[in-house]
């Protein structure tokens, strides 16, 4: 055994000892999940890959601004700015700084959205999916036509390779970029061993250049609003095969008063029960609802006309109305009512 390998084992063993107390936690989470949502290996792999990618993108942009605009010359930062692999990810992963609810929720939504896109691509080709938006390009209302063009362009920039989630900074909401960028900046300061002031300034410049309006989610949301407000042409019921995934989710979110992230989360749950309730509350025709369910399902489940028809609309409306409450309120209400009923749809 050579000396380097010997040192590696020593280092590894020491690291394992530091983390040993968390083994039981990890095993407990796998053994006793608190939800019925199943995270398959592909989702976990995609999430990790996306996380690495987005952290790499952010640290590269910060380093580029620091070196090119603020005159920072540290070699390690220059290299990261030039595209070499960064070192923030490992530091942040070990420190637990990535395990904030905000970041993990974002990862989950991104991953589930990617799952839905993959499911949809089993039923319709990428070309046909992209063509869905082109029907709005000739809309009588030029504002709608322009918004559709904007969404089309934004989507084309973020389409990753099949099965991958594109790590695109423009698609991060300002709140998420903020949550990622400051820990990354702190990690870069540690990696470079330099004063943090210039890196902080670089991060602030990154923020100032971030444009939320360029992201797919906001563009889809605006187009959904304009379509809903349009008095010249009434668009048919939202459908992922007719609207594409982003616009469909935005339209359904607008119609139901829920957020896009909630709609995506509903599709991850067994039998997509909450999605069905949303469709029923919005009074989607039976055939449309069944077709939407089939388009978004992973192939194991079936929604029948009888089941959909028997879902009580008034109760669905009440439930959807409950789900539009602020998340903190819903969470508090759930905790307070725990033990009284397991069938409140919460």
């Amino acid at each position: 055994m050579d000396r380097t390998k010997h040192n590696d084992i020593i280092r590894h063993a020491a690291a394992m000892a530091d983390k040993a107390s968390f083994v039981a936690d990890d095993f407990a989470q796998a053994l006793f999940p608190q939800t019925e949502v199943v995270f398959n290996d592909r989702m976990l792999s995609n999430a990790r890959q996306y996380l690495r990618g987005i952290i790499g993108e952010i640290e590269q942009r910060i380093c580029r601004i620091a070196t090119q605009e603020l005159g920072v010359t540290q070699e390690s930062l220059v290299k990261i700015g030039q595209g070499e692999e960064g070192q923030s990810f490992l530091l942040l992963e070990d420190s637990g700084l990535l395990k904030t609810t905000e970041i993990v929720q974002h990862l989950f939504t991104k991953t589930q959205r990617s799952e839905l896109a993959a499911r949809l691509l089993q039923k319709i080709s990428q070309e046909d999916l992209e063509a869905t938006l082109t029907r709005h390009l000739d809309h009588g209302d030029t504002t709608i036509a322009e918004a559709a063009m904007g969404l089309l362009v934004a989507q084309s920039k973020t389409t990753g390779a099949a099965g991958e989630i594109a790590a695109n900074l423009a698609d991060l909401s300002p709140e998420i970029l903020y949550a990622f960028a400051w820990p990354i900046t702190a990690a870069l300061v540690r990696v470079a061993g330099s004063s943090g002031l210039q890196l902080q300034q670089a991060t602030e410049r990154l923020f100032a250049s971030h444009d939320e309006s360029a992201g797919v989610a906001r563009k889809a949301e605006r187009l959904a609003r304009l379509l809903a407000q349009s008095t010249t042409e009434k668009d048919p019921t939202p459908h992922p095969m007719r609207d594409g995934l982003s616009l469909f989710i935005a339209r359904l979110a607008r119609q139901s008063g829920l957020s896009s992230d909630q709609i995506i989360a509903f599709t991850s749950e067994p039998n997509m029960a909450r999605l069905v309730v949303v469709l029923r509350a919005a009074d989607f025709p039976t055939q449309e609802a069944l077709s939407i369910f089939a388009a978004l399902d992973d192939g194991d489940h079936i929604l029948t006309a009888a089941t959909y028809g028997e879902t009580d609309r008034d109760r669905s409306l009440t439930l959807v109305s409950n789900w539009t409450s602020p998340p903190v309120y819903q969470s508090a209400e759930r905790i307070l009512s725990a033990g009284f009923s397991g069938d409140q749809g919460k």
Partner: protein
Amino acid sequence: MTTSGKLSQPVRGQVDVDGLLLSADPLLMRLHLRSGGYEGGPLAVPELAEMCRLSKRLGMNLSRPVQASDDDCQIDMWVETQIVSPGQEDQIGLAIIDWKEHPRDDNGHADLARERDFDRLEGKGSIRTDEALRIIAQEMPGNAANAAETIGQSLLDIFDVIPPSANARLLEAVAERQPIRNQRMREKNGAQRLFVLQGHPLVDKAGIFSGYRFAATPDDTAVGGKNSKVAGGKLISDSLFGLQLGPALRQPLGKIIANAETISSKLEGPLRGDYASYAKDIASAGRHLLDLVNDLSDLEAIERPQFTVAADDIDLVDLAHRAAGLLSVKAADHQIRIDLPDEGDVLPARGEFRRSLQILVNLIGNAIRYSPDGSVIKLKVSAEQGFSRISVTDQGDGIASEDHDRIFQKFERLGRSGDGGSGLGLFISRRLANAMGGSLVVESMIDQGSTFTLALPEQKPA
């Protein structure tokens, strides 16, 4: 008013680090003013102010949907913030790229109730109909007993349309959902009184026409005509203000006030600052004149020997809330809080609804006028010795004890001037209170505020 949602250019504004609105295009300025803001003051649209704060905290440009509302409508906007580049640091630019207005759907009910109270205060009746002109609700002056009988009947079954207008013209206006102006109608039954109706089409939450709200003003010109015949061709009747000058002056004064307010708030575009101030002065002088006309009409009415008041069953707590509601904007202008009895409480009394409301509006109006900004006006109710009482207490300068009687005298201003008062309000209020079998008294000391107490007879058990 832009309602379509399409803007040829974004509506822009600029907000500084403290949230002060530095500049704004007319649409944004109108919304800011209607939300209680003032020029150069903090951005008063909470949703936009919050977005500016978030943009500043994150240091990023945001692009989000925003829903705001003013007195008339809800506005769906798409708003983009722009952190202004170095050199003009600490400023946030707002660009509103979509602007769509909808009629308000939240407290339309409360607004209608407030409008009805204004009508009742002016002695007008109000009628609410469905889309087929069937009466849903009716409150006519001096006709409370018959109100229930008319519900469900067509407006045209209760009233005759007076020529030269005819049913066809009225129905044409209804079919086109047009406002109905100055339509003279005569009651078919009972006293066959004449009214002039002003109708406003109503639109429900879904944007669908749902009927009309009519304000019915007793048509005094016909009565005036009879009087002048009796007077043998006298040019000016005994009822100079009530029947002749009052109605003739109110309409042009109303137009002067409305136009001057439009100019002063710069709703039609930018205007030199001193010109806007002149317009404010014109509106203020117009309101003063209108108040004077109303006071003189009332003075004339209460001094007639045949003056009587109705004895309605009223609730002083309800009246307190209505009167405070009518003056809520004026109080808010001076950051004055009106402390009211609990809405669930009840204090029954006997008195004419409209006249009791008039007294309370006068008392609260005076309290606002003579209280320091940011103070509190308290309304309390009590019952003792066969009387129901409501008191209005302010934190103003107070009144010397030797002046307690003088302030209830005609045209007595205690040397004050320029505050919009006519010196008739308290005189009229006390005479009205006495006419209803009650009283109006004051307790006050210099520098310790004033308390005016209206006492009305208790309701006798049935």
